């Protein structure tokens, strides 16, 4: 998961590695490579043994002739494939939190709760190799599963997982005055704020993620009471676009050439399968240029318009991000 120093970098897949098997942008899976095992999906049956020695990013074929790509895991891909034990944070919020908290190699940051470890993995990348993430969850089984994931991804030296009710008990005293940043994702974050003051260093930063504005209200009251400065609240979202090449009819053509109009009508009505093949960019992409060429051959020489439009379904709200700085004394 984490980049290694240049001299230790390795580009080929080996036994025991975690690879992300990429079928389509919305269909990916994390797999631990074990020669002797097989992966079967809609594209066929794949033998892990065939993967070993190939570079990350390679295309591998299954017994039935279908193929997938094997990608090196990154925190972003991990967020797409991890098993959801809780509601998770997504890339827009994650990237903003890390940037706003100004995390960098060597930073010490605490997080509660751990949840499914989506944010934790990105926190680890930003503070490695010399910093640490102290993450707490009051749910023992969840903390254990998260710990297993961190070990699997080689983050065990960076991330420390503990079972602890931070809302009730606060952060451990051993962290007092040490942390550069604290992240709270709790139902009643205001209860943890007195403890956050203690563990943050002078001018350290706090972020609290809450879905409801009432939670934000109460957190802000607590932050003011504990003399936090620079309190700011944000909402971050991300809109995704899909790109399609299509032919739009000019009006003139319709009037002058009846037969072209008829020929083009069924080609232009963009059947649903076409959308998939242009969007995915993997296996089916090979049919794409052909399809378009056939259309062109029939209709006109000019290539179509490349047009982008937002993907219709999207997240409308994740949570509010409240940031504040611990009072400098």
């Amino acid at each position, binding site marked *: 998961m*984490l*980049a*290694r120093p*240049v001299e230790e*970098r390795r*580009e080929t897949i080996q036994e025991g590695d975690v690879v992300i098997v*990429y079928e389509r*942008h919305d269909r990916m899976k994390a797999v631990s490579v074990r020669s002797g095992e097989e992966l079967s999906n809609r594209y066929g049956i794949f033998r892990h043994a065939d993967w070993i020695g190939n*570079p*990350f*990013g390679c*295309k591998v074929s299954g017994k039935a002739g279908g193929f997938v790509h*094997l990608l*090196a895991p990154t*925190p*972003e891909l991990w967020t797409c494939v991890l098993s959801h034990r809780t509601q998770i944070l997504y*890339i*827009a919020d*994650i*990237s903003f939190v*890390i*940037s*706003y908290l*100004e995390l*960098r*190699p*060597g930073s010490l940051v605490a997080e509660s709760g751990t949840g499914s470890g989506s944010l934790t993995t*990105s926190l680890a990348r930003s503070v490695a*190799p*010399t910093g640490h993430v102290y993450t707490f969850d009051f749910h023992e089984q969840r903390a254990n599963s998260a710990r297993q994931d961190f070990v699997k991804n080689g983050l065990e030296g960076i991330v420390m997982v503990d079972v602890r009710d931070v809302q009730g008990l606060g952060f451990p005293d051993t962290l007092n005055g040490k942390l550069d940043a604290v992240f709270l994702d709790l139902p009643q974050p205001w209860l943890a704020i007195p403890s956050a003051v203690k563990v943050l260093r*002078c*001018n350290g930063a706090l972020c609290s993620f809450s879905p409801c504005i009432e939670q*934000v209200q109460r957190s*802000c*009251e607590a932050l*003011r009471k504990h*003399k936090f400065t620079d*309190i700011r*609240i*944000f*909402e*971050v*979202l*991300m*809109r*995704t*676009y899909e*790109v399609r*090449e299509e032919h739009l009819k000019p009006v003139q053509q319709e009037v002058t050439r009846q037969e072209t109009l008829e020929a083009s009508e069924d080609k232009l009505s963009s059947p649903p399968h076409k959308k998939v093949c*242009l969007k995915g*960019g*993997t296996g089916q*992409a090979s049919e*794409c*240029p052909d399809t378009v060429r056939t259309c062109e051959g029939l209709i006109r020489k000019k290539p179509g318009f*490349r047009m*982008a439009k937002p993907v219709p379904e999207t997240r409308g709200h994740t949570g*509010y991000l409240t940031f504040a*700085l611990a009072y*400098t004394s």
Partner: protein
Amino acid sequence: MEEESELQQVARLGSNVLVDFNNGDRLTFARLLPSASLKVGNSMCSLAPLINAPYGSAFELQRGSLVQIPPPLPADLAEAQAALNPPADSMLCDEPRGRDNRSLVDDNTAQKLSAQDIDRMRTDCASGKDIVDALIANSSTFHNKTAYSQEKYKKKKQKKYAPFLVIRRPSTRRICEAYAVKCPPKIGFMRMDTVALMLSLGNVGAHAEVLVMDMVSGLLTAAVVERMGGFGSICSVHCAAKPPPLDIVGLLNLTPSMANRVFRVSISELTSALARDDACGLLKESPHTGSAQATTDTGVCLDDDNNKNGSENGTEGLNKNAKPSADDDLNIHKEAEQAMCIDTKQTSGGDIEVATQGEELPVAKEDGRVEQNVSAKKRNSNAARYGRKPDSEDLSHWVKHGFTGLLMGAPEYEPWSVTQILLPLLSPSSPFAIYHQYLQPLADCMHELQVSRMAVALEIVEPWLREYQVLPSRTHPHMQMNATGGYILTGIKIAPN
């Protein structure tokens, strides 16, 4: 590491600081040197009192000089308000005959103090707070205002008569926010959430080897340097013979070990290294045209021999030939845009400039190269100042193993033409993030990438950011927001077949 974290927390002699007036009212960069001064209110003040203050410290003007004060807390306001007035939600419903402005007539008679009175108080060196208190005491309408408008009134008067400033560490996040307010064209209209997203999408972290094309004043390079903390390398690549300025990198207080990780190289140097390596058969990177040809087959100006092969496509050839003049047009356009940013030029450039004159800069003593560069005159040395030339060993290493990520912020170039050249330089399975202010060029680029099957997980994303005011009974989104932070095309390079 110790020294570095200390440099992060305390403003030292020679450090750059971001000065925040009245909580975001005005943002200015300054370099802390004993001789440096800054305009606060109507007077020039020495910045000497700021030296060795921890970041986050607040100062106000007292008798012509800056004096440290406890950071003004929002709690003070809330308490003052509670003391002044009964419960905060009187506005809502429980007080039908609450105060309002139905009888308020704006006839300029509410304030009993004259301008002369105020000037006299000022010359008598009354503190700003005294003036604000006097203004309130002499306002005939103040006591009929609601608690909220009383608070607003106080705030307004305080800004004018008792300005305060807070010093902040110039992190990329803060620099981006300051530029976005003062001079967005210089950073290609990127927003702080856009930069944040690009760092994640590009898998930037310690030990990464990042290829950056930065034509946004060094914002991307700075963001990457900061995030990598001295581990790994940043290769800042440029197309023109004259590398674009990376001013923003100079605003960070980089330790020599961090600054040392930045390299600058032209596209042609990289591609010719790639071609050499290709010839040796070490790397087989030929995305449908072959990399050697790809270097010539685009609209981007390389230093030389950019026209040998000719191109198969008429429009592309035209584009290429027209490039120099198009560049000129763009530059004129850009200059016009930047002329609007007088404030930034005066404050950021200005302050630092003033401070730089004739001073030996104490930062970065350890590295001869940096020291020499720093003492060179700022305006002329922008291009050469940040980043060193890689030696042939670095080059052949990059070519052999590939970069681990690519970030591009080059609003003046056709994304596809650049991507075509730079993508073969990435190792397979590496992600990339390409920024553009406009959607269409990215849509074209994404289509080409799909058709040529150079990448998977392709997506164009548009970040969206909204800030909120959260106060008792007065929570709502900010009235003004930045409508666009641009678009990012992202994907993961795959191994060529």
